[in-house]
């Protein structure tokens, strides 16, 4: 799109459609909120902080959002749907479950690496923001639960696995990602893929088979040969 390379127009001089500007402003505000929250924690962030970081007028904030909470919920929903969209796109086509999990995790890690602050809002900060954000957090977690739970069908002891296994695995994955985000080196997030794949698959397949999938490491099922 041409708009991308156009220098930012002076107020009142731009030719861009109103819709586009509105979308763009919303995204800027959401990003500013995510950055502020990851630095200061939700409670300490003010609308003034967000406005300043986004480089917009206070009025513009209130044209888009009713409150800080409203803005946070929008950021969380945006992040959740972006992350899940990627996971579904990457994992949806793969029939072989272990590779499906690997592809889904790889896509999720890609999102976290590109949008660390937004990823934090839905993995961590959501729990400290508002009752509604806690509810959204639960919903996003359940989406991942359903992907993992399919592993019970391919596991030799799928019927005996504890009920809460999937929730615990996802909690563990989120925790590892959060710890890595604290180091402020989002570009290294992708390195975690093999160990997270192994962690997630071990309860279903056993450590050895889980490691075999993790070490192939390209997120794709092997062509025709079986894994043995």
């Amino acid at each position, binding site marked *: 799109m041409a708009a991308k390379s156009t220098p930012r127009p002076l107020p009142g001089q731009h030719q861009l459609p109103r819709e586009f500007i509105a979308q763009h402003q919303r995204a800027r505000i959401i990003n500013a909120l995510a950055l502020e929250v990851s630095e200061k924690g939700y409670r300490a962030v003010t609308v003034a902080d967000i406005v300043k970081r986004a480089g917009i007028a206070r009025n513009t904030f209130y044209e888009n959002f009713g409150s800080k909470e409203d803005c946070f919920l929008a950021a969380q929903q945006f992040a959740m749907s972006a992350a899940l969209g990627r996971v579904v796109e990457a994992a949806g086509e793969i029939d072989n479950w272990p590779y499906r999990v690997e592809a889904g995790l790889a896509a999720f890690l890609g999102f976290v690496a590109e949008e660390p602050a937004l990823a934090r809002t839905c993995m961590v900060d959501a729990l400290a923001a508002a009752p509604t954000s806690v509810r959204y957090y639960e919903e996003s977690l359940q989406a991942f639960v359903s992907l993992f739970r399919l592993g019970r069908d391919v596991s030799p002891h799928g019927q005996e696995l*504890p009920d809460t296994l999937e929730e615990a695995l996802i909690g563990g994955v989120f925790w590892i990602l959060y710890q890595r985000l604290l180091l402020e080196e989002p570009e290294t997030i992708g390195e975690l893929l093999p160990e997270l794949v192994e962690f997630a698959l071990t309860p279903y397949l056993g450590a050895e088979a889980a490691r075999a999938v993790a070490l192939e490491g390209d997120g794709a099922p092997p062509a025709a040969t079986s894994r043995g």
Partner: protein
Amino acid sequence: MSDPVNPSVDSPEYPPELARLPPGRHGLPREFVAHNQRERLIAGLAEAVAENGYAGTTIAHITRHAAVSRRTFYEHFNSKDECFVAAYDTVMTELRERVDQAFNEEDEWPQAIRAGLAAMLEFLTAEPHLARLSMVEALVAGPVVVERYDAAIQSLVPYFEAGRKGRSAEVLAGLSPSTEEALIGGMVSLISRRIFADRTEELESLLPDLVEFTLTPYLGSAEAAKVARAA
């Protein structure tokens, strides 16, 4: 034994059942009164937070629950945040002592993990206000407390790392450097999400699942399930 004028950190009811000194003259040494006031303020904060949430708690709420003056509050703490940090540390110290004791009473590592987890769940179930303070409100309180929260979780790593000792090369090859952190992260998530949802009373029923989940990478599924389901 809880002596009403000599609250001990070792008392099984500590800190929620902190002894309350009657306001006014009691002829106790200054040092002791100061210490007691601090503990009362901490207990007051825990009660106020349970009632109003951390964000909704004011210093007035805390001093009312503690039955001390605002001035006394400021003799001990500069802010609500500082008082919260003290309360958080008190709860975690207590929790840690119970886990340690239970863990150390067992000779075998898998049973020690089971005992430590059981002690933790028992404490959190018995003290729903403190459970909420340490697992939910700590996240709301802001970066200083969140740092302590993260450190408290990371400090559980050695209990699980001990499970690597004596395992076969094959098992060790299946453990990555972050295995312990991932297991603990998963465990904490299971626990804290129930506290968030006001389902603290369900925590003790999580014991078998948590034991199986955390032991599986070290013992394999079958053996982990056996320890988990042992009465």
